């Protein structure tokens, strides 16, 4: 277990270092989420319900995550660097976990900007929304990273990833919007927890088969 975690740490640090140097994912995510919220601010009629505004927040979060996921395996795909990682004697699920951690970090940074921006443009955000966002992030990156690896081997990867990811993100949006707008969000937060656990296990267990040629 210690060795597994050490491999995950090495790989996650590599992904974060690559992003710090290349800066080709996080700026795109930040620009996208802020732009989306600005557009929604002007597109949504005045005196619209809080439900509609929260729904748009979740749309922005899901599509911002999609921007990050689209680029998650770019380095590994373009120069077949995934081969180098697959040859290494580490458990292959460590590659998935490290990549998920990196995408989670990028998404978290984007949301640190997005949530205050949402509060500025629309309305304040309660603790239940923050918790729902955190839980939703886990689900989004676990399933999204697996799907990104699947899409990476396809020639039509930019098309395949949204087609695979968005249907699976619907429960996240349902749980997130529900937790954000109801008085007692425990049921929706529990649903998001269940989603995270189920898809984390599936993704962790199936990653090796996805990347094996």
């Amino acid at each position: 277990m210690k060795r597994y975690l050490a491999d995950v740490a090495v790989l996650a640090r590599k992904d974060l270092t690559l992003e710090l140097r290349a800066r080709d994912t996080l700026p795109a995510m930040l620009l996208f989420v802020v732009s989306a919220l600005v557009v929604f601010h002007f597109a949504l009629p005045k005196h619209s319900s809080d439900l509609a505004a929260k729904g748009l927040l979740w749309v922005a979060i899901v599509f911002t995550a999609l921007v990050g996921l689209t680029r998650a395996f770019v380095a590994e795909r373009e120069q077949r660097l995934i081969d180098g990682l697959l040859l290494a004697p580490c458990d292959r699920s460590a590659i998935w976990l490290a990549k998920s951690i990196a995408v989670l970090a990028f998404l978290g940074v984007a949301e640190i900007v997005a949530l205050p921006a949402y509060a500025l443009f629309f309305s304040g955000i309660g603790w239940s929304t923050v918790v729902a966002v955190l839980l939703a992030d886990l689900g989004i990156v676990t399933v999204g990273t697996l799907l990104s690896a699947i899409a990476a081997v396809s020639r039509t990867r930019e098309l395949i990833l949204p087609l695979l990811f968005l249907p699976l993100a619907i429960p996240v949006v349902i749980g997130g919007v529900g937790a954000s707008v109801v008085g007692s969000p425990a049921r929706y937060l529990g649903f998001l927890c269940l989603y995270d656990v189920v898809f984390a296990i599936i993704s962790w267990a199936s990653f090796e088969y996805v990347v094996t040629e």
Partner: protein
Amino acid sequence: MEGQGQEGQGSGGHVSEGQVGAAGGGAGELLIEARGLGKRYGDKRVLDGLDFEIERGGFMLVTGPNGSGKTTLLRLCAGLAVPTSGELDIRVPRQSVGFAGHEPLVYRELTAIENLDLYGRLYRVPERRERIGMLLERFGLWSARNQRAGSFSRGMQQRLSLCRALLHEPALLVFDEPYSGLDDAGAELLDRELADLRAGATFVVSTHDPARVLPLASTRLAFA
């Protein structure tokens, strides 16, 4: 490797296998054994019904024209692909395989030393820093150790790729066109490295310049 020449059928046409110059080196213990090996990508049959064996300490030279299946065979031997038919028994663990292919498998945004450190950590290389320094020195990259791999020429990237493949002192070395991109000095350096490593490792090497490694080879697999 079997002493008798063998013949089989590959998708690219005739495949022949036979013993050549150098001694096998091993005591008859097989490291790789393939029986009826086949690989398809969708409807495309790349390899079909291939039989061969490599003894520990052997050196199999793989030759043939582009598209004949050399790279696919080497990816199978490295464990990067799984056969779609037949059997391929590779009797070394994954951490004992060193692979250098068409791509250098190094991150462009990381420096040479960071790339090797990444792989060194994943492979749990003992005395990692000393080993990395020694390889960079030996392959003429020490002065460029802190430069990003993306700024390297094709030849320097190939040298770095060879450092990566040799970092963990693998028992099985799988080299796909290792001379591509290397200048004369780099090619001579690789000649010396292969000769030095010949006694201690098993090789599967594909090349369009077979004369270069033929003196080292114990067996040749020729795709036609």
